[in-house]
């Protein structure tokens, strides 16, 4: 399927395992995702549902003894799941870059911020000119590009801040620096793991605006991992909701938000507070289940207010959740719930 219409990034049946004392845990199970050029995909779920593991699996950075057990990651139609270490390193940071949740702990405290951005350029030989030793200007070109990227992500006075250390930056500036590290090599895909969670609300809005601008100007495709369905609704074209390592609902943002077809998505929506509304927040009862000890059938059944005995029998595929889902395929609205075939879901109170 190596045609020109191959999606930018495709996950096929991706399964990531972690051996534990109580047996093997599937942190990510049979995840299928498709990301096209310039698209923004939101990966939403509670902590521990496997969404960050999906990102690390894409980059081949699952810490041992964990491993990608099954499935494939395709980058522009090329299977990158079984690449050698060196080949994979050429993709990391160059084709697919990642930004992390806590900017202060993610920047190396011992190096200048500018140097940390320049390292991305150096690792991927981005500013190569004539061969060494003729190329004395390489460092100057790299520095110029670093200043350029710092400017682009909105770090004021980048020349002066090139030699600043991470702890001398505010939280928002640190996150901008991290984004600059990600953007330095102009990757095709940006994986953003809760990039705004550690920040103040006003800074959050700035970072989201910055990522949107990057998406529009460079057509960088973004996978945004977040527990905040509200943020995903505002920022993403498509949303995939994960629960206990599986995708339980996926589709275009407006369809998923306006007509959630999985009770878990509906539950998440009821958890979002709305400014100016005195509607009580309804938390989803219970906790995320233990991945080593999942109930049979639907993993959400224990917390689902409309679960029936049949929910604990057998395995459920993603079902078409809208009239055109089958026609649109992976671009359509799908959900993993028996009630899609059984009965109608109660309407959301507005």
């Amino acid at each position, binding site marked *: 399927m190596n045609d020109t219409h191959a999606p930018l990034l495709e996950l096929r049946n991706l399964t990531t395992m972690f051996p534990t004392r109580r047996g093997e845990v599937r942190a990510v199970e049979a995840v299928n995702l498709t990301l096209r050029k310039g698209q923004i995909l939101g990966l939403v779920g509670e902590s521990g549902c496997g969404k960050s593991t999906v990102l690390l699996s894409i*980059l081949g950075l699952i810490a041992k003894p964990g491993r990608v057990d099954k499935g494939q990651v395709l980058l522009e139609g090329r299977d990158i799941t079984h690449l050698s*270490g060196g080949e994979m390193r*050429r993709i990391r940071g160059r084709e697919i*870059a990642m930004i*992390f949740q806590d900017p202060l702990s*993610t920047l190396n*405290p*011992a190096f200048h911020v500018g140097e940390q951005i320049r390292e*991305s350029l150096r690792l*991927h030989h981005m500013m190569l000119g004539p061969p060494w030793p003729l190329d004395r200007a390489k460092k100057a070109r790299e520095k110029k590009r670093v200043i350029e990227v710092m400017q682009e992500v909105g770090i004021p006075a980048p020349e002066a801040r090139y030699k600043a250390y991470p702890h001398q930056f505010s939280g928002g500036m640190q996150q901008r620096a991290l984004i600059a590290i990600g953007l330095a090599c102009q990757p095709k895909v940006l994986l953003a793991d809760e990039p705004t969670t550690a920040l103040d609300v006003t800074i959050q809005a700035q970072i989201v605006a910055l990522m949107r601008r990057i998406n529009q100007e460079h057509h960088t495709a973004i996978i945004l991992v977040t527990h905040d369905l509200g943020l995903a609704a505002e920022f993403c074209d498509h949303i995939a909701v994960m629960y206990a390592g599986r995708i339980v609902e996926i589709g275009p943002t407006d369809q998923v938000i306006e007509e959630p077809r999985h009770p878990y998505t509906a539950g998440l929506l009821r958890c979002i507070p709305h400014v100016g509304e005195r509607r009580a927040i309804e938390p989803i009862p219970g906790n995320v289940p233990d991945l080593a000890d999942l109930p049979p059938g639907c993993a959400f059944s224990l917390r689902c207010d409309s679960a029936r005995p049949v929910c604990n029998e057998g395995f459920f595929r993603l079902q078409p959740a809208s009239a055109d889902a089958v026609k649109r395929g992976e671009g359509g609205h799908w959900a993993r719930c028996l009630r899609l075939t059984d009965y109608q879901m109660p309407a959301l109170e507005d």
Partner: protein
Amino acid sequence: MRLVKVIERLLAAIPIMLGVAVIVFVFMRMTPGDPVDIMMGQGGTVSEGEVERLRSEFNLDKPIHVQLGLFLSDLARGDLGNSFTKQQPVASLIGERLPATIELAFGSLFIGLLIAFPIGILSAVKQNSLLDRLSMGAAFLGISMPSFWLGIILILIFSVKLHWLPVQGRIDYDAGLQTVTGLYMLDSILTGNGPALISSLKHLILPSIALGSAVAAIVARVLRSSLLEILRSDYVKLARAKGAGETTVVMKHAVRNALIPTVTVVGLQVGVLLGGNMIVETVFSWPGLGRLVVEAIFNRDFPLVQGAVMVYAFIFVAANLVVDVLYTYLNPKIEM
């Protein structure tokens, strides 16, 4: 900026050393045993008059506060006094012995770090591997093994059985070394004396291993444990996500940060190596400060003990200062 701070800290060392000197002065005089009695005991039968004469020569017949005043006023003029037993200025006695101790301390430190770094890094990177278990077992042994015992074993194997290395001393008698600094290896290089360099190096190896193995063990363990923590940190994850190879990740991103706790421990070890090596000096007949001080304590040679303790105090202060300066380079969050 740093230089000003360093000078400030060195000046601050003066009251510390003074305090140490006064405490040692008082405590030495409170310990039982009289220097003149000890000296006379060695000399056989002596008359009362002779004893009195020596007492007044050493000012031991005066009240303790007068003695302290005399000591401090001499000190203010830069005079550490004369040794009771050796009848020589304390400063020159210490000056003769200190280079030997410094040379041994640096030799041990060099060998210790040479062993500690590869082992600490490799056992962190390959945690729980056979290599890790073996080297951490060896490190445990290194910490618990008394250095004098290791010294004797080393002599037995490498000197007595194999005849590879000399048994004792700092240099062969016929090396014909002209001393400049008192550090024999440095002097051999300065005077271009090849045979002396080889001879002094051969003499330095075994005592350095005996002393340095404990350093290696402690530093390797600290380096390993701080690396283990750092290798799980977010910035190491980012370095990998940037596309850095494992060598860059470990050697650049991780080790650089693991050096911060390691340097603290190394600094403390330098103090220990310089101050606490009497036993190894004795085993290898190494003519260092440690042996001189032990002898001086047994002889109640007050001025010599005071002078030596002040030197030790200064070495500790200086080692701490070096650590603090290194810190400001390693950890940008810390200023002096």
